[in-house]
């Protein structure tokens, strides 16, 4: 039987199911209020010292969580209501549970993911003390087991020996929980959101945390398929792991920045920011679907990615509609759309729509390290007009007292006029080479036409010469140059791009490891 859930930490595990929700032993009521009070004090103290012992063996993230639990347990504001209930005649376990459940309900009701995820921490804190109160010997987890239950406490995760494999399968749970974060950093496979099973699950199981599923009582054929997937995953992990977490450096020792291209804000959910140097291209066409997006929708989308990236740069491209990306209500029907009203040309023609995006970007800029670039720039005048619109909207926001920041403004290098005469753009903050469009315009070969696909190659000397010229201009003037086209993540093209003088590539997230591996092989 297969149950689908949501992958929270990728990987595969095969082993017996261990029921996390097995009820703990019952608490023995004490003779009087004084003893009840003492029992709770002792239990809290015991929980704190167990946590303190774990802190010593834990690494950064885990230690931070444990210290948080200790601080909560040592705070009289948490235990106060429980001691008050004991004073009015309740047993320690009932009083403690009621006090903590009140706190937990407050977190559960939050509309923010981060807060809701803290409810699991509060449950953990509650159960640690309940466990200490009843002092039952908990059933030991067999090595390599798949822990299955409603949710799992961070301390339970830390107490478990993961060296023999195993994984976590949760009926509810969250990909934003502390345990999910720990599981990802320790490489423990984890699936959440499996839902309640029709019947209790027991016996051997297969956990596919790459796709998000658990298979209980698997058939021999299911086991075989599972093992093939697991081994392929291990191979891919092995090859990628070597390079993914390391900064990209060539064989000759040259450092190369590697950023990611994203098309949707949710793309970043699966990427560890530590594995890349930022977002080299965030497309904004996704916002322009069936209807034109309002300012708030755009602001929230930009903010999400900026906050994810922390202090690393996020380069957002203003809407690049037109060409092969028509948008109802924005783009126009044209006989030759690639050479028509697209990119910045369209934005400057529809300033009402462009201004909404500009305001959203200016407001979002305070939430991170934002850079903004304009697509399809052909002349310096287009850049000046777009920059002037930013200045106008900035002045308007300032007048209204709205928090904002003017980000560095750069341009895409994809029209040959820019690549041939970059000196006309000496006042832009940065260049980002769009190798897909640059190639199609230099070779006069549409990139959506299979009949001319053989002409559409970044390896043509004309294309590489232009890229080299822009890189050289950037070096001479101190203007940063990056490349965000498909070629940047193509292991076959990377050596030529580095030869051309580029040191900053932006690639699809899935290509990150392969790109870093290709860079490591380069002799530049």
């Amino acid at each position, binding site marked *: 039987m297969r149950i689908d859930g949501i992958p929270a930490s990728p990987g595969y595990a095969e082993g017996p199911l261990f029921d996390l929700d097995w009820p703990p032993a019952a608490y023995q009521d004490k003779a009087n209020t004084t003893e009840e009070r003492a029992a709770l004090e002792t239990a809290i103290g015991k929980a704190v010292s167990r946590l303190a012992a774990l802190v010593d063996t834990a690494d950064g*993230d885990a230690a931070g969580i444990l*210290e*948080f639990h200790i*601080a909560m347990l040592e705070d009289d*504001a948490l235990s106060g209501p429980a001691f008050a209930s004991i004073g009015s005649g309740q047993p320690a376990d009932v009083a403690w549970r009621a006090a903590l459940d009140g706190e937990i309900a407050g977190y559960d009701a939050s509309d923010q993911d981060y807060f809701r995820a803290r409810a699991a921490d509060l449950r953990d804190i509650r159960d640690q003390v309940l466990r200490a109160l009843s002092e039952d010997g908990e059933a030991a987890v067999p090595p390599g087991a798949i822990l299955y239950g409603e949710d799992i406490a961070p301390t339970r995760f830390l107490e478990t020996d993961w060296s023999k494999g195993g994984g976590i399968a949760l009926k509810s749970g969250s990909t934003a929980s502390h345990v999910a974060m720990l599981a990802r950093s320790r490489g423990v496979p984890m699936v959440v959101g499996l839902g309640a099973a029709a019947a209790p699950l027991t016996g051997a199981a297969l956990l596919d945390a790459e796709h998000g599923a658990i298979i209980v009582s698997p058939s021999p054929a299911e086991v075989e398929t599972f093992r093939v997937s697991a081994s392929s995953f291990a191979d891919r992990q092995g090859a990628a792991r070597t390079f993914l977490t390391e900064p990209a450096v060539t064989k000759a020792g040259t450092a190369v920045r590697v950023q990611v291209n994203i098309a949707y804000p949710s793309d970043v959910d699966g990427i560890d920011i530590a594995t890349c140097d930022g977002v080299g291209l965030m497309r904004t066409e996704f916002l322009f679907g069936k209807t034109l997006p309002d300012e708030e929708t755009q602001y929230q989308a930009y903010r999400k990615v900026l*906050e*994810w990236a*922390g202090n690393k740069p996020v380069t957002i491209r203003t809407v690049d509609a037109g060409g092969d990306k028509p948008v109802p209500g924005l783009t126009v029907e044209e006989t030759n759309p690639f050479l028509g009203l697209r990119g910045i040309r369209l934005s400057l023609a529809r300033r009402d729509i462009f201004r909404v995006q500009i305001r959203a970007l200016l407001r979002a800029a305070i939430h991170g390290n934002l850079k903004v670039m304009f697509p399809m720039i052909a002349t310096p005048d287009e850049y000046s007009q777009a920059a002037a619109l930013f200045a106008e909207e900035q002045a308007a926001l300032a007048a209204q007292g709205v928090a904002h920041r003017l980000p560095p403004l750069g341009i895409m290098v994809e029209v040959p006029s820019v690549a041939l005469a970059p000196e006309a753009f000496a006042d832009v903050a940065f260049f980002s080479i769009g190798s897909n469009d640059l190639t199609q315009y230099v070779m006069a070969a549409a990139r959506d036409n299979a009949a001319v696909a053989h002409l559409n190659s970044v390896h043509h000397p004309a294309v590489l010469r232009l890229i080299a010229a822009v890189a050289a201009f950037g070096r001479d003037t101190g203007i940063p140059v990056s490349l965000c086209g498909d070629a940047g993540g193509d292991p076959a093209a990377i050596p030529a791009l580095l030869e051309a003088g580029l040191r900053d590539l932006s690639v699809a997230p899935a290509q990150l490891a392969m790109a870093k591996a290709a860079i490591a092989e380069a002799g530049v």
Partner: protein
Amino acid sequence: MSASAEATVLITHAVGLHARPSVKFTKLAKTFAAEVEVAVAANGPWFDAKSIVKVMAAKAPKGTLLHIRAKGDGASKAVEALVGLVQRDFDEGADHARSA
């Protein structure tokens, strides 16, 4: 002597004043004799800055303008130190910012 001080500071830490940042915040607050309180609005409600349970209950995400006030011995030093901690992003690197 009833010294008092008050200041506001923008929270720039990715997850706001929660979990790990609030541990540091309350630990620092406890080093001062003054009574210290925080709020997410100028008119309150005010929370005890030395209680992590109360500070967490303030639910101050990134982008919140945090109000800090103190009364008693070393009030202005306390406010100054806590503002500094928030401004330094709770002394956490960017790598920690998203996973805190």
